[in-house]
């Protein structure tokens, strides 16, 4: 029995790891090799692809944007969702079930719904800071739903 368990787990982890290995394998080969011949490991090992994504100009802005977004999102999620998660898992209060389900419904709204641009802005969406806020808002809505979902599962101290 213990052996079947171990084999099951190992097979599952292999299933998870092989696609990642393949990505790493391809990332360490020059394009010519990838298209030219099929091999299970890099024949001409190269870190050129990595050098390019860290030095080419277009990427810098992307890293910065991601960092700013992550920071804003983390701050909002922690300050807002954590107290709520605590309240839901420890206390009973008037309307708690209804409130929980309503918050969960916001987790259900497809992100694509919020793609719809406001008509005034659509022609020239130059307002970067506003659009950044829009992304953060729609994401933190998602996050807050999730942290509440996982909190009841954590054991009480």
């Amino acid at each position: 029995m213990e052996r079947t368990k171990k084999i099951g787990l190992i097979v599952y982890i292999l299933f998870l790891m092989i696609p990642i290995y393949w990505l790493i394998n391809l990332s360490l080969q020059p394009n010519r090799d990838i298209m030219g011949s099929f091999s299970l490991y890099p024949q001409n090992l190269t870190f050129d692809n990595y050098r390019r994504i860290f030095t080419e100009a277009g990427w810098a802005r992307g890293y910065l944007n991601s960092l700013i977004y992550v920071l804003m999102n983390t701050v909002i999620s922690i300050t807002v969702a954590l107290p709520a998660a605590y309240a839901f898992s420890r206390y009973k209060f008037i309307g708690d079930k209804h409130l929980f389900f309503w918050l969960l419904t916001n987790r259900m709204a497809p992100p694509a719904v919020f793609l719809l641009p406001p008509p005034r802005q659509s022609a020239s969406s130059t307002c970067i800071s506003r659009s950044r806020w829009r992304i953060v808002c729609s994401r933190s809505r998602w996050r807050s739903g999730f942290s509440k979902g996982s909190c009841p599962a954590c054991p009480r101290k």
Partner: protein
Amino acid sequence: MNKVENNRAWFLVLPVLLLVAFSAVIPLMTVVNYSIQDILDPHTRFFVGDEWFREMLRDSQLQSALGRQLIFSFSVLAIQIPLGIAIALCMPTRGIWVAISLVLVALPLLVPWNVVGTIWQLFARGDIGLLGVTLNSIGIEYNYTRGSTAAWFTVLAMDVWHWTSLVVLLCYSGLRAIPDAYYQAARIDGASRIAVFRYIQLPRLAGVLTIAVLLRFMDSFMIYAEPFVLTGGGPGSSTTFLSQHLATMAIAQFDVSRAAAFSLIYFLIILAISWVFYTIITRATKD
């Protein structure tokens, strides 16, 4: 879980309430506003009532996208929930391997969604991908850009790869929370493994399974980035799910009013099905 009754807990919930009211209710009302008007340009718009809704409900493309979406979401649940429980039961319970296997299992959850699409696009390609090359070399014709069965298989495999770990982690935390006394009592009674699973582990997992089913249903019903990167909805429209159909309408065709009506219908479907799940499962755990 025994909770303390205290209405001051409302103060802890207030911030999230305000944020959600600001970031969800306002955009939602904008969508409602669009859905009942015919907008020709920002200054010319007419009130059309429920016309868009009628048109969308009759739309055959939407109906087939909805059908595909339902098949996809229910296959995802049918594969991932049992598999997740099984793997959680296989996880080691003590020793150094706990941490190692937890990290390895959680790894796919950390991969951004469009990267998941890229990983599988490369992995499944018939010329340079390990999966594609292997399948083709053992004589199975496999090309996810041409055959719709292959495309479906790849999209499902990708979702199983990405999200089963969430079910595993939730179930694992649920299993760890079962006190040892339960198992001791079972041993004294001479209960079989199946009985232990059926009468101890499964009932104690009901809470986390509710969350797992809801999260997996909602997420798979809204899936967008992964199939968009992997198959682009193709071949033809065989893997075009609702979100992608909606995005094409709203962005590529810029058909704002129709897309708004569609959005609301879409949202109501998710809401209705999730509510049914939520009620059934919370009722079942009460009995």
